[in-house]
């Protein structure tokens, strides 16, 4: 407790970095997963390929993926871009399946009604299918958000600073207070991410009873 109180400035800046490293990939991943999921939904033959393909990416252990990123991107090992791209890959892997499930959850008659009203396929996606798929997509996003916050900590092993740095530094210098602060801060941040996703989903679906 005293350790945390004495280092509030450090904790705040690491928390902000952690938020960016976990949050930006969450948004990028969603942006990539929606078109991929939509294509997989429209062309059922592509669905297994897309879902299994992205699923295989998810099997790569995070530390290995962080280290392999410079080979793929041509970046330096300490570059935070490696972490952002790797986390985006994981987010896409988790969300493509969710987007497909979400689009499948849209009742067929609603979709047919929109078509009958003259909606084209993009307007239907944007104004009918996606809004109705929000609850399912949000459920997947919650999992991805909490998992991202947890995985980003590991980037401190390759020297990218965020809350995980409190864990590595606390361990290396045997400062229990710092280690504990890191764990609690990461847990709280995961909770905040979760609440933001749940809150945004509520705001976007006002027709669902609270």
């Amino acid at each position, binding site marked *: 407790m005293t350790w945390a109180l004495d280092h509030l400035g450090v904790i705040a800046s690491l928390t902000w970095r952690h938020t960016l490293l976990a949050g930006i990939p969450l948004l990028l991943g969603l942006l990539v997963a929606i078109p991929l999921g939509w294509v997989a939904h429209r062309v059922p033959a592509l669905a297994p390929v897309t879902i299994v393909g992205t699923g*295989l990416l998810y*099997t790569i252990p995070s*530390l290995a993926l962080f280290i392999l990123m410079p080979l793929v991107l041509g970046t330096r090992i300490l570059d935070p871009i490696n972490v952002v791209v790797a986390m985006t890959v994981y987010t896409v892997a988790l969300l493509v399946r969710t987007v497909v499930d979400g689009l499948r959850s849209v009742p067929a008659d609603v979709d047919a009604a929109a078509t009958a009203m003259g909606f084209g396929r993009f307007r239907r996606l944007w104004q009918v299918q996606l809004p109705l798929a929000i609850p399912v997509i949000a459920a997947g996003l919650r999992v991805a958000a909490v998992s991202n916050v947890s995985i980003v900590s590991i980037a401190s092993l390759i020297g990218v600073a965020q809350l995980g740095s409190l864990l590595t530094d606390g361990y290396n210098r045997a400062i229990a207070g710092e280690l504990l602060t890191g764990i609690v801060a*990461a*847990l709280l941040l995961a909770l905040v991410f979760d609440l933001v996703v749940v809150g945004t989903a509520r705001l976007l679906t006002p027709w669902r009873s609270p």
Partner: protein
Amino acid sequence: MIASVWSWLTDPANWRGAGGISSRLGEHLGYSAVVILIAAAIAIPLGLWSGHSGRGRWLISAANAARAVPTIGLLFATSLWLGPHVTGDLAFTVPSILVLVLLAIPPILAGAYAGVEAVDPAVRDAARGMGLTGPQVLRKVEVPLALPLLVSGLRSAVLQVVATATIAAYVGLGGLGRYLIDGLASGRYAVMAGGAVLVSGLALVADLVMAALQRLAASPGLLPPGRRKRRSDRPDAGPDPPHGTTVDVPAGQDREGSRTHRR
């Protein structure tokens, strides 16, 4: 850069000896197998019991919530606290193994519980109506029907353990993670990237093996009619659709549910 990684991977000298790739791979597999066995021995009975009796559901929720704890935090805290109390080489292995077991339990528990919980109540009632006792219902009906989801939970646990065992090299565990951590410490990118390729390959192969097991685990009666073996001597054999209890588990099922906060 790719060329140097490739030459490190293909140099036979790197594969032999005490710190060679072959022995590191063996260590990695050994730790993972021991951890999964211990975790399964704890989590499968608990999950089956909870699903069967409907009691102890808080266990599942608690285990799931615990997954939000960053794995390296758990790993470091345990090594810091336990390390001084264990002597010799065990000081490096025991804390890591303990954490790996803790991390493997939630997905297995969730899989076993969800499998039994998802059994159609009508099937359970029919088994009871035939005179089966509680334990018999569990053994002869619920467990076979729960098997695909149970194996799916094991699959998540295997991935989690293979990935986290890599990270545990930071607190002194052997295995392939040594290349990533030692390569990093000595600034040799070829070594760490080579190790990363090996670990990724291992994770991929392990996942494929578990996916195959998951398919095998599906009881023949649960397969869609086309994939079911026809038995002509059975009066009801024929292309009748299964009645609502089909649990066809495609590869990657339950990803969101049970395999998230690994690493």
